[in-house]
């Protein structure tokens, strides 16, 4: 330790520092003061975005609701805007039908995948399969739309011969495939964060893997799982291109999945791409539909957040 402190007698840097410090203070302090405001400004942009969305949707919707009664809009069952019938139910019905089919596809498959990945697959398998599965969520939705129209629909047609080319079934099915990884990945995360001690406790009593999954892991991860499902559903509600391409453009209040339907999103695309005259009631109606869609997904997102916050600290 004789090597320590061998250099004595150098000029003291500290005094140097302090002097410089004092010279710099004005500039340095100014930066230090300005930066938080700049950062706050940036953070506020996201709030402004929400305000902007609300402004956009509300402004035009108000225009719409001054022509069409809001009651007729939400209680009417026929959507024939060119004949002046603005009952949004068929569009909501179409959206719900797609969402329902997608949920029926994605939730069991996603959950089972999550269980497989989290409890049965070894680490290597998980590390390979999980990202591959996640690729499903990253594929552009036009590609899915194309796939639904040119592959899935013909495939279903060979089973259900009188299935139309545009139908809710293949659209919903493919939306379901697309959201599988959302359910699988987020649920897997939730299951993974169940402490191993709980699993050990159950294994130590002679439980099989399946019993551990059902009676320990799933209940403990329930909030995360439910939140993942709600988020996936919200994604299905807002999905646009797949249904625009594959599910048709027929506002149809039906729960028959073989029929052509129109979702809220598909109507917005249809109406916004030029099929309407600026300022006409139909033009405004697309914002009223957008508003309804926004409220739907907002509700789902808030619900998901509520669930995951409320039940977070359970174990």
């Amino acid at each position: 330790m004789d090597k320590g402190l061998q250099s004595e007698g150098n000029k003291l840097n500290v005094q140097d520092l302090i002097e410089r410090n004092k010279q710099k203070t004005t500039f340095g302090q100014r930066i230090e003061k300005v930066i938080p405001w700049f950062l706050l400004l940036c953070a506020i942009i996201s709030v402004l975005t929400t305000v902007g969305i609300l402004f956009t949707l509300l402004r035009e919707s108000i225009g719409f609701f001054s022509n069409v009664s809001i009651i007729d809009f939400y209680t009417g069952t026929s959507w024939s805007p060119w004949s002046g019938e603005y009952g949004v139910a068929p569009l909501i019905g179409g959206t719900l039908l797609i969402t329902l089919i997608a949920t029926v596809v994605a939730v069991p498959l996603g959950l089972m995948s999550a269980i497989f990945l989290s409890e049965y697959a070894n680490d290597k398998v998980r590390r390979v399969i999980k990202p591959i599965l996640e690729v499903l969520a990253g594929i552009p939705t036009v590609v899915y739309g194309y796939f639904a129209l040119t592959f899935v629909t013909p495939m279903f047609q060979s089973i259900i011969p009188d299935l139309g080319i545009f139908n809710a079934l293949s659209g919903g099915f493919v939306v379901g495939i697309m959201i599988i990884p959302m359910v699988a990945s987020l649920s897997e995360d939730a299951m993974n964060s169940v402490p191993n001690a709980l699993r050990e406790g159950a294994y130590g009593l002679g439980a099989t893997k399946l019993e551990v999954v059902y009676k320990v892991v799933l209940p403990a991860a329930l909030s995360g799982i439910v939140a993942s499902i709600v988020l996936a559903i919200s994604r299905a509600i807002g999905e646009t291109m797949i249904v625009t391409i594959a599910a048709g453009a027929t506002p149809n209040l039906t729960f028959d999945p073989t029929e052509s339907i129109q979702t809220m999103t598909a109507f917005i695309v249809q109406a916004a791409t030029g099929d309407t005259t600026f300022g006409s009631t139909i033009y405004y109606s697309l914002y009223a539909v957008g508003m309804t869609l926004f409220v739907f997904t907002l509700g789902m997102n808030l619900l998901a957040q509520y669930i995951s916050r409320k039940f977070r600290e359970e174990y």
Partner: protein
Amino acid sequence: ACGGSGDDASGDEGNSESSGSEGSSTEESGEEVAGPIAIDGSSTVYPIMENLTFSYREEAPEVETSLNSSGSGGGFKKSTKGEIDLSNASREIKEEEKKQAEENGVQLEPLELAYDGLSVTVSAKNDFVENLTIEQLRQIFLESSDAEMWSDINPDWPEEQIEIFAPGHDSGTFDYFNEVVLEENPMKEGENTTLSEDDNTLVRGIENNPNAIGFFGYAYYAANKDSLKVLGISEGDAEPVKPTGETIQDGSYTPLSRPLFTYVNVEAYKNKPQVRDFVEYTLNNAGKAAEEVGYVALPEEKYQEQLDKAKSWAE
């Protein structure tokens, strides 16, 4: 892409014309024309315009054309505000659109590009319909009619739901049909009707469903002769006529023959050399382009007339 019997002849015509146009554009502009041209509007006219803008690049590589297809109404929505230079239309401009243009200080002038026979088609899988009368068309498409099944139109036909695929209500094609067939009475809407601004959606929908019927520009039929069956149309007791190059040009396909337009923003024509150049190019080549994509060219002198008319705008 579109093998028609008239191809050879029109090809020759086209060649001679395009060499003429090369001459004209070089002698007039002298220097290279450059700058953007924005085109939007009718999806019926879209294939002609796509063909023209594509070949125009060789002529004037510095000109940046951008082309969209939002339907005739969608095009006018933008052109009456002066947002675009050329507004394609499969119908004439409406009074309210004209008024809107005036309010915005925009002057729009029509140019006829080709003839179209609005084609009423069913799927090639349909083995019962061959011809329809105008009266029967009304039965099928009018909201006020009770006909739901094919058997309601003709007792020999099967008792199957009629599925309608029609262009969106603001499209020129719909307007034209509305005017001459439906006589401005509302068309059926709702569960069995698919409205789409995208003619290809209509083609796909019809070709897959033996009980479907719909209508669109002749080019879309011409491109899908294998999977679609075009119907002969008769007025009163006359012989049914199917749309072909000849019947459209000689006017025997009636009443569904119609001209196709592009509306030029005169201001842009005056001030933008590239617009002027492109308009001339268009009038010199529209006939060939129309034939190539499956429409019918106007008589040669008609293009020359319009060219002179256009030149007069600049003065």
